[in-house]
């Protein structure tokens, strides 16, 4: 069994000092700050379709680039156009300190300096060829350092949530979507105040609990396999 933690040999001093700082909430993320050492800048793609709430345009471009490799949609898949924008929307609802950490992580992931310290590479992620980008993703994913694996988990989750939360992906996944005719968007909302509780399909009143149970009510809309009627 492989034990917790990582290094089979002592890492170079520079890396070791980084590791000790920890990832989220630690100083290493500051490495992701823009523009150091005059290294090459982020390659931007298309401009965002709508104004961004949390991400800067460079960060947006990084998310677009990594989402393309993580999702790798087949030819019949819905396009990736809105993924980075959707990630921005997901982040907009998060706590400000979480937003800041994600922005720093994106910067670190793109950063030439961090790329150099981690893997001797001086090109930003967005300027790499697709197979090189996959290699960088694998390095983070399979890293001996927990903090890089944590970072990979965060970036992967963001990209996948940004894409697969669109219902336009359902057909692609052969997911039929929720059953029809059960959700009632006009159902009454009860707030007490002396008003009687409205009727509801499943409501089970306290008084009923005094009796014995009826046998389980085989739901009319289901078959024995638990699949709802189309």
């Amino acid at each position, binding site marked *: *069994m*492989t*034990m*917790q*933690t990582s290094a089979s040999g002592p890492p170079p001093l520079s890396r070791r000092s980084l590791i000790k700082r920890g990832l*989220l*909430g630690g100083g290493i993320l500051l490495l992701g700050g823009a523009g150091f050492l005059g290294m090459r800048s982020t390659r931007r793609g298309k401009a965002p379709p709508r104004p961004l709430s949390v991400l800067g345009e460079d960060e947006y471009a990084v998310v677009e680039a990594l989402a393309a490799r*993580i*999702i*790798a*949609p087949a030819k019949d898949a819905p396009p990736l156009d809105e993924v980075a924008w959707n990630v921005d929307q997901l982040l907009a*609802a*998060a*706590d*400000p*300190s*979480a937003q800041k950490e994600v922005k720093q992580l994106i910067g670190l992931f793109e950063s030439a300096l961090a790329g150099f310290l981690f893997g001797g590479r001086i090109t930003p992620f967005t300027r790499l060829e697709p197979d090189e980008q996959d290699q960088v*993703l694998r390095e983070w*994913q*399979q890293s001996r350092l*927990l903090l890089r694996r*944590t970072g*990979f*988990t*965060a970036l*992967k*989750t963001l990209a996948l*949530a940004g894409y*697969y*939360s*669109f219902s336009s*992906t359902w057909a692609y*996944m*052969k*997911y039929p979507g*929720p*059953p029809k005719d*059960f*959700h*009632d968007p006009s159902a*009454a*909302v*009860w*707030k*007490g*105040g002396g008003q009687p*509780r409205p009727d*509801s*399909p*499943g409501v*089970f009143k*306290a008084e009923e*609990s005094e009796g014995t149970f009826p046998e*389980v009510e085989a*739901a009319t*809309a*289901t078959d024995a*396999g*638990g699949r*709802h009627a189309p």
Partner: protein
Amino acid sequence: MSDRVGRIVTGDELTADTEVSAEVCIVGSGAGGAVLAHELTARGLDVVMLEEGGYHTRREFNMDEAWAYPNLYQEMANRATDDLAIRILQGRSVGGTTTINWTTCFRTPPRITQVWRERFGMAALTDEVLRPHFEALEKRLHIHEWPLEQINQNNRKLWEGCEKLGYDHKLIRRNVHKCANLGYCGVGCPVDAKQSMLVTFLPDAVEKGLRLYANASARRLEVSGSRVTTVHAEVRDPATDKPRGVKLVVRAKVVAVSGGAINSPALLLRSGLDQGGKVGRRTFLHPSLVSVGIFDEEIAAYSGAPQSVYSHQFIDRGPGKIGWFTETSPIHPVVAAVSFAGFGEGHRELVRKLPNLNAVVASLADGLLPDEVGATVKLRGGGDARLSVHYDLQPSHWEAARVSQVELAKIQFAAGAKQVVTLHEAPVVMNSEKELGKLDSAPWERCRTRLFSAHQMGGCPMGSDPATSVVTPELRFRGVDNLFVVDGSIFPTSLGVNPQQTIYGLARWGAQFVAGSVA
């Protein structure tokens, strides 16, 4: 119905700073708080409840994950341990986790109450004492066994696999009434068939005078001497979930913290009530592994009652080893996509097999070995909105993880799976039971395979020893005479079964102490 008129008040209705008083203030509307509120209002007490999440009902339960996670889950379903090794699924709306759980009910196992009596001094907590509480709850919440002919294909695979292997397997009892077997319990029941707190004890208590404030986030308890006097809350905008600059202040004779594991310790810590570092320690998560089986036939694991079969074959593995219990997980698109192993083409091809996938889960019963300390909940620096959950998983956890992953795959192959894959980032793909050995050489480390927690327990353990317990055997917070903790955070260990019914039972039992404290 009492003379007192109860109400559910949402954040949009509170436009100016508000101060209310009550005999009891309960923080949290989940399994613990709701049952407690019902018991107290039934005794004629004047109760105010604060719930941080929104008031969401079947009117909004559209069975779409993209709506449900931001509205019904803690941290938009992104709550996790600090290293992201364990994703923590926990509810955050009126009804708490009961609004989004999978309706699985177990009484507290006698082996657990025995541990709590013998190792933690909970001498009064016998199965005989709890029985009448469980019986009453089972009636009100319509808890009954789900019939074999109604189980879905996902659960049938677990049933058949266990049957072939001669493993223990039984039907699960569920808190549902007129269940339409849709399969969307985890995103809010659209037909109120789930007998969650949202549709049972909370409205029952409101009819008895409970004033329930939704979108009201308790930030701090004010303590004077050995008494808590006030609960300070901030009101959030239901539309944006952001604070709207309005304060809600509750003055009460007695306060019960029922925010659940993780959030209850956090509120106490924000209030400076750390009991010398005990609060937040001994948090247990039932860390869970998932095994994905690929079948030729359609499974449709998104459809039908999500959990109806369980196996306790490996719950007791003898001294020094961590046991686990086996159930299924429904598979819905978003959570599947973010959980599946790898990235790129391999990930995509698995996602595209969604209808043919089966998921079985092993949940580790953590906290029962003498040397286990569990996870620790702390506040993060730089503002009080975020928490830290740190879980340093030990070799004993990883041993159980590895062996359970083998057993899950065996069950799936026995049930006819063509292929079984794990959630390792470097995917482990097995085409028959002959390849189970791949799991021995797979990496068992944080963020190399995916773990989940659907059950959060502990952090304010009950017990008789002041050195190790946060609340007394009467659930009183040590050092503060009129402060109680009533939720899953009082468990001294994990349970080895799904916790909702135990939380209901302890709250119903513990209500006597809270009521008795109202002078």
